[in-house]
């Protein structure tokens, strides 16, 4: 058997699924469920909501598969459905006022004072896996929704800038400015945990 036969062939699976092959759609679901669940958790920050978003995403994708024109990748298409579902969840929670992704975001002066400190070479090794997870989750959860969503798509799910813009119905410059802000804010938050420890001359006291 040629090695390429084993490669996951998204477009032929999508074509089969569109013809009514439920096994093909199940395979697509198996392939992407982890990504969609992680993304939903990152946006909603809540496990129950994330599970609802996960189910809604694949049920809607199945329902609307005949409308999928194949202009984007199937994965980008379901990401878009998932983002919409997740944002809807947040809107239902009245306390979140930062949900509207098309709000203008100031790109100018960043009033946050940045801490400039060199990090350890492998800073994550200072912490256990659980501690590290908690540090990383807390930092991401501290970002406002527009930044958190862009960061999750670009740097956690690995979408391109253009795919992220498409999924969020934003312009490319808007995605770029949000991504930059998200990355810089996370860098600031993580610096507190990862910066190089300076030798303390009074440590013996």
């Amino acid at each position, binding site marked *: 058997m040629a090695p390429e036969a084993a490669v996951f062939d998204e477009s032929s699976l999508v074509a089969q699924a569109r013809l009514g092959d439920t096994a093909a759609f199940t395979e697509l679901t198996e392939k992407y469920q982890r990504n969609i669940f992680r993304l939903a958790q990152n946006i909603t920050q809540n496990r129950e909501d994330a*599970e609802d978003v996960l*189910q809604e995403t*694949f*049920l809607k994708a199945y329902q609307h598969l005949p409308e999928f024109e194949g202009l984007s990748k199937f994965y980008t298409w379901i990401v878009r459905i998932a983002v919409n579902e997740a944002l809807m969840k947040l809107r239902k929670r009245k306390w979140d006022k930062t949900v509207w992704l098309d709000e203008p975001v100031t790109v100018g002066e960043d009033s946050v004072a940045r801490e400039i*400190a060199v990090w350890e070479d492998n*800073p994550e090794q200072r912490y256990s896996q659980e501690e590290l997870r908690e540090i990383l989750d807390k930092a991401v959860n501290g970002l406002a929704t527009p930044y958190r969503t862009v960061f999750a798509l670009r740097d956690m799910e690995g979408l391109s800038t253009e795919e992220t813009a498409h999924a969020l119905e934003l312009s490319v410059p808007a995605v770029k400015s949000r991504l930059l802000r998200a990355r810089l804010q996370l860098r600031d938050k993580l610096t507190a945990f990862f910066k190089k420890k300076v030798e303390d001359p009074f440590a013996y006291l």
Partner: protein
Amino acid sequence: MLTCKQFLAELSDFLDESLGVAERKQLEDHINACPNCWVIADTTRKTIEVYKCHTPISIPTEIRSRLMKALEKKMAAKRGSTL
């Protein structure tokens, strides 16, 4: 020579390596001369890496099985309606 503000505005593209040769050179010249921006670039690059390497991709078994059940139900309903 770029100002620090100009450098920061291009930082994401610099780290994503999506700049042309001439622009990249300008940014490299800036960080070679500006220790603060060097630190920001280096620690932002590490920020992105740490999230890439330490973001688990897993789904709890019970959540996965509830998804599959919901999907099967939907598929069965659709089959029923098209028969």
